[in-house]
């Protein structure tokens, strides 16, 4: 079991940055689509609405990535601890913490 715990550590270490890369890729895609809509808009009113949607999209993705960045870092640290065998034996009482 301890070998499995340690072996999976590498997966958690990869999963952290992989999830952030996926989010950045998706953000670029969505922001690109939103900007295209601005260029495709024909009337001034439609352009203004598309521009506001594009701003919204950028804001949403910026928030999501900013929030998940420290969490992904935490997942890398968790993976590192797992690989180092820190979870082979969990503390029996909180006095060990």
């Amino acid at each position, binding site marked *: *079991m301890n070998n499995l715990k340690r072996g999976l550590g590498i997966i958690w270490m990869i999963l952290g940055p992989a999830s952030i890369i996926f989010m950045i890729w998706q953000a670029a895609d*969505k922001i690109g689509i939103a900007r295209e809509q601005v260029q495709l808009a024909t009337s001034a009113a439609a352009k203004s609405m598309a521009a506001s949607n594009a701003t919204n999209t950028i804001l949403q993705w910026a928030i999501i990535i900013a929030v998940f960045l420290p969490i992904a870092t*935490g*997942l890398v640290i*968790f993976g590192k601890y797992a690989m180092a065998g820190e979870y082979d034996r969990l503390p029996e009482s909180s006095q060990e913490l």
Partner: protein
Amino acid sequence: MSNNASQGIGKVIFSSSLGTLIEWYDFYIFGSLATVISKQFFPEEQGTAALLSTLAIFAAGFIVRPFGALVFGRLGDIIGRKYTFLLTLVLMGGSTFLIGLVPGYKSIGMLAPILVLLLRLVQGLALGGEYGGAATYVAEHSPPGRRGYYTSWIQTTATLGLFVSLGVILLTKMSMSNEAFNAEWGGWRYPFWVSILLVVVSIYIRMKMKESPVFTKLKKEGKTSTNPLKESFAHKANLKMVLLALFGAVMGQGVIWYTGQFYAQNFLETKAMLDFEQSRTIVLWAILFATPFFILFGALSDRIGRKWIMILGMLLGILTYRPIYQMFLDKTDVSASAGATMLGAPSVRYEPVKDRPDSIMITSTEKQFADGIKFRETRTDTMFANPIRGTHPGNTTYTEKRLPTDTYWLFVFLVFLQIVYVTMVYGPIAAFLVELFPTKIRYTSMSLPYHIGNGVFGGLVPFIATLITSFKGATPLSGLWYPIGVASVCLVIGSIYLRNKKDENILD
């Protein structure tokens, strides 16, 4: 346990739970009224943008929760549990009441959304500090071997807070016309104003409570932490447990909680297109039937351990979400509306097209199928001013669906199932977290993973799921991949790394 002790713990549970329930109520009325709030506080011509902005504020409320956990967790470990969660109650009640007093965008322009955003952030901060305090306070009063049972009462408060918020909104809406409810100073504000009365009662009750005996003892011995943040997150031995709690339990619990209650209601209203009242009463009935299971699974965790109950709840969610939501769609599919009977004559209205001489003809018809499902069919056709081009048929939408009795109760059962999963993951988790950390840094250490798991992973379920459904090639069920994915990772980590432990001693 003696009768006196039983009465004592009963009082502790009641006083803690009431305040926590009110805080959840305050927090959820905003989310439940997202559509009307978006219309009141954001420019009307930006329908989708306004709704997304509100959802962003909703998410901001959740995102600041972890910061609230740090600020108030630290306070709770230094000055004590009682005064800290009294302070969070005052902040929450005050900000909720003030949201109800902010004039709309039409009256004060951009100041309206800015004020609402600031007040929402205060709500998020307050909630971040409340839960850890209440759970710790009850756990530190509970005898060994009964901690899961007693803390499970605190666990019912989030769901009951949602129940009360939906109930108050529904009652307010049913007591007046749609116009009166949606007006700038209309009925939608009443649930915010009601909050101040509830909070005053709860503050009075909490003022009479005594400090946690475990914390009082620690303080008397001069053993409280001077820097709980450093001890919680800068010491490897404790940090590794914080990370394990987050990735092996709370992350999955958070997405199961928000999918079962919030996303289910959101899906019924926006994807299955049920009418306002039915989409809410379905969730209300399901919550009512499922709430006792919090106590059941909390008590069961005292006997068989916390871990496997939580893991089973996640597994059931992962396996059944897609079939359940597919059934929601199948049972409300009215696209073959040709076979339906018209209920009354269609209503027709015309709207001019901006900057063009053409007009739009909107035909709205109420229809019913033989199986009893009623719905409104709305056709939007463009009528060109140039007679050669004539009329161009547009989209047909099906809204305000009302289910027949048997399908209605089937939907109640399907949401009930999801809330039972919630009770499995959430019922034992307060005891699980309390037992993981020492008294002197318990408030801080348990609050942060709890609020990252619930606030960030869970709170963003409706937001991220909605974003996923906007991806190219996405179906209405695609949004479910987010909670399924997060719960799956958590299930693997929890199964392999967590121990099925019941800590008898939390006095260290």
